[in-house]
């Protein structure tokens, strides 16, 4: 009996985490206790927990500051590691690291998703020899993450800091959700930056959630609070299979939301005028099914998961309302990672092209737009999931290539009747070909000459001519586009081929 009592008391103490004052501190910041987070995350609660008694011979280190185990989300098994910031600020000791490594190994063996609920001050310097440099030290966590990447989904929910080496946990996840105000990521703290390089900067500016989700691109989703972050993770996983061997679940389809304007009315005749691509996306996908990724980062390209007749689909769409829908280094990176994510887990890709091309000018050339664009092309090219490319209005130059143009083996390249496909737009082309001729003409004759050449050019790239040459596979009525996509994604469902045999390609990173 006494033994039972001892066990009961020990369990209660460990489950309650760190000292009361740290619980209170967390509460003030709007942070939940780690075990409450897990209860909200899982359908029920964590079902099995590992090394609950880790480091119990030391005082004040319940579970060694991390909870690891398996539970269910949307009925599916998922592995988790969750820092307890009431225990030494969630810092990593030797047992903390070993627990994280073990649950990663479990996720790999079971081939189920791995979730990282991060809220940690980083390494316990006092324990560095035991937890930092050795074979099963912290480096192994990242090594495992890299090995797991593309085999099982890896999701990071960032509730607090993720400092120095710890910042690589989010970096190697498929997706990073950051809670505004509390989450941060940085290699060196503001205090260290001031000491070492003399920079004075706030934490928010250098490593805050808002900055990472809109400027650096290290964060994917900005959540207002922890509850929202947790609900996002549950929703996100519903689009994914458990691992790379399986296909995502097929839910019962829903029609799209209803709108006053039809697709045809939505798209302006003037190729140069902006329109809102979200409006088109919402007319093509099942109602309320858009789960956007990197909304605030590089908004000239929209990426998100959606359902079309209940099927998981990754949408990649140019947004003419932001920067004209032109591709930049950041938007090319955003696209590359998203396509790899979808391809890894057998989620078909839908490209909605309305693109004047890649940006030109000194600023972007110096930023390496060529290699960033090449990265996007490589990821798109390698994707072997069903790919449908829709030319909504225009696809000029390498923009056509980047948006899964015909040469990149889309299963279909469709065009709306007003679509233009060309090396460049009419204005630029006429200028490129006839600049000298135009300069020689008397000024009053120039406008009519230019107009005539524009018309000739447009005839030359007429969409019926391109369909006749079998550049595109079909011209689709705007209001029938959704039905066409439903049919085609259904037909291409069992596509199965391997891109090529090799160890791996060499990325133009």
């Amino acid at each position: 009996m006494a033994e039972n009592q001892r066990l009961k008391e020990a369990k209660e103490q460990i489950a309650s985490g760190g000292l009361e004052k740290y619980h209170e501190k967390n509460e003030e910041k709007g942070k939940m206790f780690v075990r409450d987070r897990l209860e909200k995350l899982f359908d029920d609660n964590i079902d099995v927990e590992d090394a609950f008694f880790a480091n119990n011979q030391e005082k004040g280190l319940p579970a060694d500051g991390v909870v690891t185990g398996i539970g269910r989300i949307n009925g599916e098994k998922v592995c988790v590691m969750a820092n307890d910031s009431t225990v030494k600020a969630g810092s990593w000791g030797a047992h903390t690291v070993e627990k994280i490594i073990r649950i990663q190994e479990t996720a790999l063996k079971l081939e189920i998703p791995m979730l990282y609920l991060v809220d940690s001050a980083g390494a316990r310097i006092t324990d560095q020899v035991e937890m930092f440099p050795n074979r099963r030290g912290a480096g192994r966590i990242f090594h495992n993450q890299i090995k797991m990447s593309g085999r099982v989904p890896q999701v990071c929910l960032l509730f607090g800091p993720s400092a120095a080496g710890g910042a690589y946990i989010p970096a190697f996840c498929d997706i990073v959700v950051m809670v505004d105000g509390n989450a941060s990521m940085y290699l060196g703290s503001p205090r260290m930056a001031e000491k070492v390089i003399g920079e004075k900067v706030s934490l928010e500016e250098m490593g805050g959630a808002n900055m990472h989700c809109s400027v650096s691109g290290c964060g994917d989703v900005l959540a207002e609070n922890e509850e929202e972050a947790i609900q996002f993770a549950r929703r996100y996983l519903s689009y994914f299979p458990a691992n790379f061997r399986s296909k995502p679940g097929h839910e019962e389809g829903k029609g799209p939301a209803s709108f006053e304007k039809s697709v045809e009315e939505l798209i302006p005749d003037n190729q140069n005028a902006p329109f809102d691509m979200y409006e088109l996306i919402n007319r093509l996908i099942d109602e309320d099914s858009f789960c956007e990724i990197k909304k605030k980062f590089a908004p000239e390209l929209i990426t998100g998961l959606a359902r079309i007749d209940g099927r998981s689909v990754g949408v990649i769409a140019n947004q003419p309302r932001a920067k004209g829908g032109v591709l930049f280094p950041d938007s090319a990176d955003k696209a590359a990672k998203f396509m790899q994510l979808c391809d890894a887990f057998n989620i078909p890709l839908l490209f909605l092209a309305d693109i004047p091309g890649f940006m030109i000018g000194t600023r972007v050339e110096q930023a390496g737009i060529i290699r960033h664009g090449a990265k996007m092309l490589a990821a798109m090219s390698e994707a072997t999931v069903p790919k449908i490319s829709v030319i909504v209005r225009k696809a000029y130059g390498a923009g056509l290539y980047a948006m899964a143009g015909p040469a990149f083996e889309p299963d279909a390249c469709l065009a709306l009747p007003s679509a233009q496909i060309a090396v460049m737009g009419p204005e630029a082309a006429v200028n490129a070909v006839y600049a000298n001729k135009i300069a020689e003409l008397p000024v009053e004759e120039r406008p009519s000459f230019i107009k005539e050449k524009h018309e000739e050019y447009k005839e030359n790239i007429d969409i019926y001519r391109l369909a006749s040459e079998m550049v595109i596979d079909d011209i689709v009525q705007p209001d029938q586009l959704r039905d066409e996509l439903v049919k085609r994604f259904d037909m291409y469902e069992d596509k199965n081929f391997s891109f090529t045999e090799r160890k791996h390609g060499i990325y133009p990173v």
Partner: protein
Amino acid sequence: MEVKASMAGSVWKMNVSQGDEINQGEDVAILESMKMEIPIPAEMTGKVTEVKVAEGDFVNEGDILAILE
């Protein structure tokens, strides 16, 4: 608040003058770049205290077009 060019291009239309009131979401200016119209909406409702560029000017990404208060 500074209204900045979202990308390099030329100022095609400047929709406001000094002293104008503008609502959040309304276009302060429209740039022309890559043969596209690039609207630059106001991120807040306010009064235009200064216009920094003229129509036809080349602006680089991040250049200030106007100041709102």
